[in-house]
């Protein structure tokens, strides 16, 4: 394990909607570090996990107010970055892939053109060279027949392939940090493994830092290094993925226990009993 400083440092991240007088906090007091590793942010709907990911890229609606004690990416203070600075970072050094390629890929542009746009962001290249780079990227994500796929439209390819196209787009600028927001939730179980294996490969090869947002505890247990469990806008537990079976917070234990499992069949699934104390500090 390298002892370099973390790529991303977050301390006391808070995101709130509403007015300054009556704020509605959605994320509260979130702190974590992210190095060149795979960290999962796990939670149910309403836990704030997607908001955390979007807050880092400042992709939230204008009414959202983002505050943090510290929000540093590779030495850059993201709290006071101007919008032009954020634009330079987004897609180039900080990137994101989302859940459903059906909705996150432009349906009226061919795949090659969309990836080409991502390539062009790094500086003008000739059309021939752009096409070459697009094909190379598609090959990098293990798509056979990259030239044919480059000419296709998003609705003509399967979900798994669409997600790989998204990853290819993201790779065009060789980012340092990738935020993946439920990237495999819309995919079939068998395809899921392939996409995860691809992400694994990229993390190892390019030293990518990966923030993996998911609701699926079992998935992140096997895929990620560390897990941050969120509930009602707060991180309730941080632990190594391998230690999930020994989780200590009752919410994490409750979540793990209530999943139906093939190995461990029970007549009645334990139901999570929510405690109001979990949503307080």
């Amino acid at each position, binding site marked *: 394990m390298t002892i370099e400083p973390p790529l991303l440092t977050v301390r006391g991240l808070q995101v709130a909607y509403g007015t300054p007088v009556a704020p509605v906090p959605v994320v509260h007091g979130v702190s974590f570090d992210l190095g060149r590793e795979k960290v999962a942010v796990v939670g149910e709907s309403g836990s704030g996990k997607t908001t955390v990911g979007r807050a880092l890229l400042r992709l939230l609606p204008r009414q959202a107010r983002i505050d943090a004690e510290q929000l540093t990416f590779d030495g850059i203070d993201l709290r006071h970055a101007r919008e032009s600075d954020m634009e330079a970072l987004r897609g180039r050094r900080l990137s994101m892939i989302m859940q459903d390629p059906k909705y996150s890929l432009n349906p009226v542009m061919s795949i090659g053109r969309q990836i080409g746009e991502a390539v062009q962001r790094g500086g003008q290249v000739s059309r021939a060279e752009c096409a070459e780079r697009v094909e190379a990227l598609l090959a990098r994500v293990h798509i056979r027949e990259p030239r044919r796929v480059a000419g296709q439209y998003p609705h003509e390819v399967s979900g798994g392939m669409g997600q790989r196209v998204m990853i290819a787009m993201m790779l065009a600028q060789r980012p340092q940090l990738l935020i993946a927001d439920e990237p495999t939730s819309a995919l*079939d179980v068998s395809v899921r493994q392939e996409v995860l294996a691809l992400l694994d490969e990229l993390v190892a090869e390019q030293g990518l830092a990966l923030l993996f947002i998911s609701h699926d505890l079992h998935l992140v247990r096997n895929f990620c290094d560390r897990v941050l469990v969120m509930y009602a806008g707060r991180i309730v537990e941080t632990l190594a993925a391998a230690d999930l079976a020994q989780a200590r917070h009752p919410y994490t234990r409750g979540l793990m226990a209530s999943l*139906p*499992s*093939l190995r461990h069949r029970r007549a009645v*699934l334990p139901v999570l009993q929510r405690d109001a104390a979990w949503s307080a500090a």
Partner: protein
Amino acid sequence: MTAMLSIHDLRLAFGEGPQSRTVLHGVSLEIARGEAFGLVGESGSGKTSVLRCLAGQYRHWQGEVLMAGEPYRGERSPAHARRAQMVFQDPYGSLHPRHTVRTALAEPLRVQGQTDRLDERIDEVLQQVGLPLHFRFRYPHQISGGQRQRVAIARALILKPPLLLLDEPTSALDVSVQAEILNLLAELRRQHGLTYLLVSHDLGVVAHLCDRVAVMQQGRIVETLTCDALCNDEAQHPYTQALVVAAQA
């Protein structure tokens, strides 16, 4: 004892001529009364199409279907409604947005002309699914996803059908809510001797609720086995084995 549901050589295709796409290639299965039967597969396997044929959404299928011994040809009649009801996947889409819970639950009774003791029966079914009685006058947007799914289950049960068709009833719900709904479904089946045909992509859910399961791939059933066998790694077909491995990964 006659089977509750008997499907023989169900075939379904869309389009005509060279553009025709076969979705079901001769699916056959039998479910005994009181049994819970799971249908597992990935997207494109045809599992949801089987349900849709049984619900009367698709009419142009071929094959033989017997429900409680009576032949079924795809009609949507009040008589069929009393034999089989369906719980849908998306709790946000399966309730009419402008109908209160009470209206949604009264509707099947009104359609059947069973309007005596209306409120009593509504209250009874609300209690069975664990919803407080004051939920009667709420609109769907005022209740949570899990609660909507309970209303959907109540609506399916109010006519007391012996057969319940379940289309991924928990896949759109949070993990913690899923456990509650699965427990509810198991309990209801035990209490009322219902027969379930459950479609899911989640082997864990199927293993929890069902006695037997059929694995579908590209419009065909590749294997039918008991859930016990499935959980004990006794699956024979390589696709089933792959699904089991993926489910535990």
